[in-house]
């Protein structure tokens, strides 16, 4: 039993004191930023990247992963208690969760969300452990042409399944790819688009882009909006443990949400957000006669999406760990963090760094266990934090971002770049151009170029190589089909309504 041997290795790694400590720090921070207003996992992970230089690779990645799935728990707390989703994936939780809270069932809603998430996290950990080796096996047979086509599919998938304008999202990917071209060409050694600035010949740091756009840019746009006044109706939460009837009603939804999230998370562009939306839609279709109607505090409307978003968040590690292709902005930062530690993301991670690979997977289950403990008995602490005014928070974010930018190269150049991307990020936000695809494109840009040029070199300049190799052709056709399906008028309308529905 390879699986058991691998998981044993994983748990041995994850249960070391240091790794447990950083898993705990990760999930604690994740819950914290999930609860705090206007601070998301992308900006937080970007802020914490300086610590990656100091830590070993394993604890560093365990901590960053913990922030990501921890934020899913924290985000649902605010959704239920104050009707403000802390993370975008908790948007649908707010619909029924908040209604439950208003009816005095906040405790039940929180417990359902936490226990459902824990169950989903456990299953998703096993899914990752079981499927990652299979995909890795496949990835080893990939040549440069296949890798290029896979990245095309990954990038297209990432925007097709996201919300907003498809055309603009694809344009943002290309812009990201182009920004990734500001570097020294790996093959010929020619510096490109550096304008004689020596710092630019190493390329723009992805941290500067992430902090500028998701840190500074978001702060500016938040400050431009009218102040948000948070009110907590449920000062103390009682009756945490769900009743027998609650369990009976929620259990099937948890199972469905977990299954759906595990599948959707693996898709490029999938992950937490899509999973929770899809699960809510599914629950409404399947549960015909809920005791409490949907939209008025149905427990199924909390149990399904909450399980789905946690399962999706975890299985979205699969493409990143096995193929080195990030399906969303957080995974893009994880790829960046691995590169900082000198680990080339891709199928070789599993064979070259088995402790890292399996330790990370095992730590997810441990992290989920910690999250249940953190979120249920300690819920009172988080409720107090819900109302921290934004005016205390954003100067702190700016300060940590600035220090982080400086420590990248011990040089103030990256702070200037961060400021520039803050302005650019604000403009993106004003023009409704989503920045996440830009970051994905930026991270994948150099890898894509290298594979494209190597594929052309191998085929002696014949572009048909991408279509003649069956695997590569299949991936490209899949990408094309995705675009065609989404542009079909009937689907397009449906896609728009799915994401706008009751938001």
């Amino acid at each position, binding site marked *: 039993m390879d699986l058991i041997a691998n998981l044993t290795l994983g748990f041995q790694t994850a249960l070391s004191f240091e790794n447990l400590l950083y898993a705990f720090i990760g999930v604690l921070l994740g819950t914290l930023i999930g609860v705090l207003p206007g601070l998301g996992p992308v900006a937080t992970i970007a802020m914490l990247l300086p610590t990656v230089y100091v830590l070993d690779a394993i604890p560093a990645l365990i901590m960053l992963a913990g922030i990501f799935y921890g934020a899913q728990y924290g985000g649902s707390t605010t959704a239920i208690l104050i009707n403000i989703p802390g993370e975008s994936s908790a948007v649908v939780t707010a619909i029924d969760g908040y209604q439950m809270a208003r009816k005095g069932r906040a405790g039940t809603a929180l417990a359902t969300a936490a226990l459902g998430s824990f169950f989903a996290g456990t299953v998703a950990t096993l899914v990752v452990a079981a499927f990652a080796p299979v995909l890795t096996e496949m990835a080893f047979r990939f040549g440069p042409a296949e890798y290029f086509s896979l990245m095309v599919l990954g990038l297209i998938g990432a925007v097709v399944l996201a919300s907003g304008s498809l055309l603009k999202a694809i344009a943002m990917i290309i812009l990201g790819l182009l920004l990734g071209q500001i570097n020294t060409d790996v093959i010929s050694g020619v510096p490109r688009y550096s304008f004689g600035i020596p710092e630019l010949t190493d390329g723009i740091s992805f941290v500067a882009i992430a902090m500028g756009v998701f840190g500074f840019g978001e702060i500016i746009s938040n400050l431009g909006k009218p102040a948000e006044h948070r009110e907590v109706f449920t000062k103390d939460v009682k009756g945490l443990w769900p009743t027998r009837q609650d369990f009976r009603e929620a259990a099937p939804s948890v199972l469905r949400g977990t299954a759906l999230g595990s599948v959707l998370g693996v898709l490029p562009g999938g992950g937490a957000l899509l999973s929770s939306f899809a699960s809510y839609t599914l629950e409404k279709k399947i549960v015909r006669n809920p005791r409490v109607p949907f939209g008025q505090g149905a427990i199924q409307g909390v149990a399904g999406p909450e399980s789905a978003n946690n399962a999706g968040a975890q299985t979205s590690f699969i493409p990143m760990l096995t193929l080195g292709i990030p399906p969303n902005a957080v995974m893009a930062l994880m790829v960046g963090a691995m590169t900082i530690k000198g680990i080339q993301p891709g199928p070789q991670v599993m064979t070259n760094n088995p402790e890292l690979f399996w330790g990370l997977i095992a730590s997810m289950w441990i992290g989920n266990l910690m999250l249940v403990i953190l979120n249920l008995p300690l819920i009172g602490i988080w409720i107090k934090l819900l109302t921290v*005014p934004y*005016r205390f928070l954003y100067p702190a974010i700016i300060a940590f971002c600035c220090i982080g930018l400086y420590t990248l190269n011990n040089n103030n150049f990256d702070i200037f770049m961060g400021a520039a991307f803050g302005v650019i990020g604000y403009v993106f936000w004003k023009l409704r151009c989503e920045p996440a695809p830009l970051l994905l494109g930026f991270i994948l840009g150099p890898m894509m170029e290298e594979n494209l*040029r190597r594929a052309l070199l191998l085929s002696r300049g*014949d572009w048909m190589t991408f279509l003649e190799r069956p695997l590569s052709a299949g991936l490209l056709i899949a990408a094309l089909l995705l675009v065609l399906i989404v542009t079909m008028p009937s689907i397009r309308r449906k896609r728009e309504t799915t994401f706008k529905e009751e938001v």
Partner: protein
Amino acid sequence: MRIKSQKDFWAGLMFVVMGVAFAWGATEYSFGSAARPGPAYFPFGLGLLLTLLGALVLLSALTLETEDGDRVGRFAWRPLLIVVGAVLLFAIMLPRLGMIVSLPVLIFVSALAGDEFHVVEALILGTVLTAASYAIFIYGLGLTIPVWPSFLIG
């Protein structure tokens, strides 16, 4: 011609300008041949693609009706200038004056960007965050950040 979506119009224009700029810049480098693609190959192609996509966005902004003209809306100049200004100030000050001086300045100035501003609150916030940063980054993580003004250390 009437612009039907202001946001998409400017976004499209931005894509076209960026696309043309990158493609034009690429002509400075060697294209190589298809069999041996040079450094200009990939960015030139991407630049053209971005220009094309930008043109499509522009076209849709001029033809597809929107409910309210999809205005860009007012720029939040105050937070924009203050936040960016504070960050730039920090970037200039840090190598010379160290974290002990530049971090409180950064926090105090950026606190001015919000709707509510209280001097005492901002001062306390600056002090607390500077102390916390020292504890975390210098003492805890051992990062090399200039702490004291360079003229004091000599």
